[in-house]
């Protein structure tokens, strides 16, 4: 199978030659993620859609200048983020960039009550161990309902955390690509990913624990 980035380059060649289908395939591939990212910077869904529209026009206008030094998607998302930031400022609803960053330094990956207090026998060690999920059958882990739990947990995350986990773990981007596309540091990217994954794990644990008790 062709990798996503190789396919992008073929599509770009076709697009330069004016191929409608190639353009639509690129749109299909990136539109949903572009909308989510644009929505982090502007006040409404309608404005986010305009930002995405404007980004594609920017892509068409700039395509002859794209030399393939970065991947197409990195280039695409840089254009998107620039337009979205400018638009956010113009709408006077610019999201302060700090609100996209990790925030509360005290936010913990696991409920602190899961660990023994300083007065315990082994302070900072598990009160009860997490379960081994290999005992949950594979079909259950990959069932639609389990995936629904994961999707729901991601929906409930702060926007920056949701975006990073989607790019990294749903779409399989590298950390470098995510940093470039969102214009954030490696450290911030990793903290956002850590918080996001930790919360999704908690949601899964809650769901699978109920499941295993029932069966």
């Amino acid at each position, binding site marked *: 199978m062709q990798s996503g980035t190789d396919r992008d380059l073929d599509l770009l060649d076709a697009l330069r030659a*004016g191929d*409608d289908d190639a*353009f*639509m395939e690129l*749109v*299909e591939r990136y*539109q*949903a*993620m572009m909308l989510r990212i644009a929505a982090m910077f502007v006040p409404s869904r309608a404005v986010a*859609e305009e930002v*995405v*529209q404007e980004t*594609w*026009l920017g892509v*068409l*206008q700039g395509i002859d200048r794209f030399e393939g030094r970065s991947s197409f998607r990195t280039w695409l998302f840089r254009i998107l983020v620039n337009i979205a930031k400018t638009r956010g400022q113009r709408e006077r609803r610019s999201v302060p960039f700090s609100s996209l960053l990790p925030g509360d330094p005290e936010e*913990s*990956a*696991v409920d*602190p009550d899961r*660990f023994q207090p300083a007065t315990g026998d082994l*302070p*900072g*060690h*598990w009160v009860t*161990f*997490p*379960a*081994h*999920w*290999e005992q949950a059958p594979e079909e259950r*882990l*990959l069932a639609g309902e*389990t*995936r629904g739990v*994961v*999707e729901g947990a*991601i929906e409930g995350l702060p926007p920056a955390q949701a975006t990073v*986990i*989607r790019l990294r*773990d*749903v*779409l*399989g981007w590298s*950390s470098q690509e995510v940093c470039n596309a969102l214009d954030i540091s*490696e450290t911030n990217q*990793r903290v956002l*990913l*850590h918080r996001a*994954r*930790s919360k*999704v*794990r908690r949601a*899964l*644990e809650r769901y699978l624990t109920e499941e295993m008790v029932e069966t």
Partner: protein
Amino acid sequence: MTAPAELTCKELVELVTEFLEGYLPEPDRERFEAHLAICDGCTAYVEQMRTTIRVTGTLTEEQVPQEATDRLLSAFRSWKDR
């Protein structure tokens, strides 16, 4: 030289992402692995994180509404005729 302090479970869960990303600097990575070797709870926890990543990887992005793509297609066609 003193031996580095042992990692607690509570500390370990905050380092999992750095560990999985290969970003944990050397003395910490050794402490992390030494702890895993003796702690079944943390071993299960790291497995749970790996499973979480795997299940998340089976999700797909939503489809785009038709009208938005139609508008883009007409923008593309006028670009072609420039």
